[in-house]
């Protein structure tokens, strides 16, 4: 065996740096270890990759029943006060006027120079003058630098309860939380401590995400597992988001990638007079983006992987940004940047390690939401 196996025991740079800087741990760290989770470094944290049932079983449990993820590695940057709304309106690309207090919104932090997506975030508009902004783990400092506020990540845990039966399971231990509708946000109490519940997620299934103080996180986690929800780790989180066609920063989003290229023009407040990155983005819209993120299905089980070439008519036209085996479809799926003139239905080839395999551009999501 080689690949990851061969590198075991040999210090790798991120690993040795991590050993020096100490990885952050979730308030649920001991719970994961007790369950036998395989823990891995991720974005400066050590988090569960999978529990003993494995990624595929966790993935299927989320599509057919319900699971709970510990996503405490996501950041929480809290922006409060009379200027908070205006600050976010100018720093982030989406338009808060599309929503209202008590709602959640997907938004983007763009590079003012070239409109690259520096991070994608979920904004929880908790109260008229309070916003909880959730960046990707490794981008929390960058987002805080752009929007101000306080990094309160260490004070709370975040649990994502996802799947067609997530709400019915949650209702057995916390009925109020189970009624928080899609893209709404509610301040509730768990065991007397202030919690925020939002109808958001990253799996393509119905469900909620819950921020609770670190001190009551273990009791909520245990109550959720007692309802029969299965714990799920980062491995399943990645295969689920890929089937849902959702972008991941560092793969589909990052330096040189604009919202228009990534198909996220819907998350841009074009009518806002200004926001960071607006000018280069408007210029790109006028000229037309040079490439476009597309969903690709291939024949066979072998997973496309990031970096694999995509060919069309014999020419290399792009590269895979994320790829894996789709447990639901039983075949390889990928996201890839290709020229804008290629459309859904077009035939492509993806050049796997073993050679090219036939594929085609499809409309995301790869897998539709399950019925509750």
């Amino acid at each position, binding site marked *: *065996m*080689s*690949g*990851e*196996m*061969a590198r*075991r025991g040999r210090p790798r740079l991120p690993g040795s740096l991590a050993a020096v800087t100490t990885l952050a741990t979730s308030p649920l760290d001991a719970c994961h270890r007790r369950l036998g989770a*395989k823990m891995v470094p991720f974005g400066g944290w050590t988090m569960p*990759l*999978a529990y003993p049932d*494995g*990624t*595929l079983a966790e993935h299927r449990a989320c599509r057919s029943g319900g699971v709970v993820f510990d996503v405490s590695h996501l950041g929480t940057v809290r922006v409060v006060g009379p200027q908070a709304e205006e600050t976010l309106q100018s720093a982030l690309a989406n338009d808060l006027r599309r929503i209202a207090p008590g709602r959640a919104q997907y938004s983007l932090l763009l590079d003012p120079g070239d409109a690259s997506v520096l991070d994608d975030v979920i904004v929880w508009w908790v109260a008229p003058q309070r916003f909880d902004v959730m960046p990707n783990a490794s981008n929390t400092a960058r987002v805080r630098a752009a929007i101000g506020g306080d990094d309160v990540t260490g004070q709370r845990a975040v649990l994502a309860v996802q799947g067609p039966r997530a709400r019915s399971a949650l209702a057995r231990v916390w009925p109020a939380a189970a009624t928080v509708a899609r893209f709404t946000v509610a301040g509730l109490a768990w065991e007397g401590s202030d919690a925020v519940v939002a109808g958001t997620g990253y799996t393509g299934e119905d469900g909620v995400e819950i921020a609770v103080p670190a001190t009551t996180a273990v009791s909520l986690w245990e109550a959720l597992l007692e309802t029969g929800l299965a714990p799920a780790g980062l*491995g399943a989180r*990645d*295969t689920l988001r890929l089937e849902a066609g959702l972008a991941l920063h560092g793969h589909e989003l990052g330096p040189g990638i604009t919202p228009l290229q990534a198909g996220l023009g819907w998350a841009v407040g074009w009518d806002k007079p200004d926001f960071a990155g607006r000018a280069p983005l408007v210029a790109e819209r006028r000229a037309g983006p040079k490439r476009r993120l597309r969903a690709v299905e291939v024949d066979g*089980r*072998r*997973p496309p*992987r990031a970096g694999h070439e995509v060919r069309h008519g014999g020419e290399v036209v792009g590269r895979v940004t994320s790829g*894996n*085996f789709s*447990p639901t479809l039983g075949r390889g799926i990928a996201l890839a940047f290709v020229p804008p003139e290629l459309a859904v239905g077009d035939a492509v080839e993806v050049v796997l*390690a*073993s050679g090219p395999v036939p594929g085609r551009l499809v409309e995301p999501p790869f897998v539709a939401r399950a019925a509750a």
Partner: protein
Amino acid sequence: MNVPDDLRYSPDHEWVRIESNRARVGITEYAQDALGDVVFVQVPSVGAAVTAGSSVGEVESTKSVSEVYAPLTGTVVEVNDELGDAPERLNDDPYGGGWICVIDPADPTELDRLLDADGYRELIGG
């Protein structure tokens, strides 16, 4: 971690079972556990000549791609075609239904260079 006493092992986490004069090859329980859920296995072709230490297949899990190395020099005489539809056998039954191929060894003394069960247990620290 299960390390059967009657097998020989490569330091690259392959196992070898001698059946008459032939060598059945797979990956160890330790290897499958480290890989996570296997979703694709590329087996070699029957008739392929392989050299000890050269690639004889590839295993892809949900998180990574790993090469399988031939533990012995020889000719591939049988491959496990059932892995095409059921790669999860590498996880569920690594020393049984998860076998990858059978090699007809060119030099049976090569077997002596492989680890015995105790040696392999020491290698994986358990």
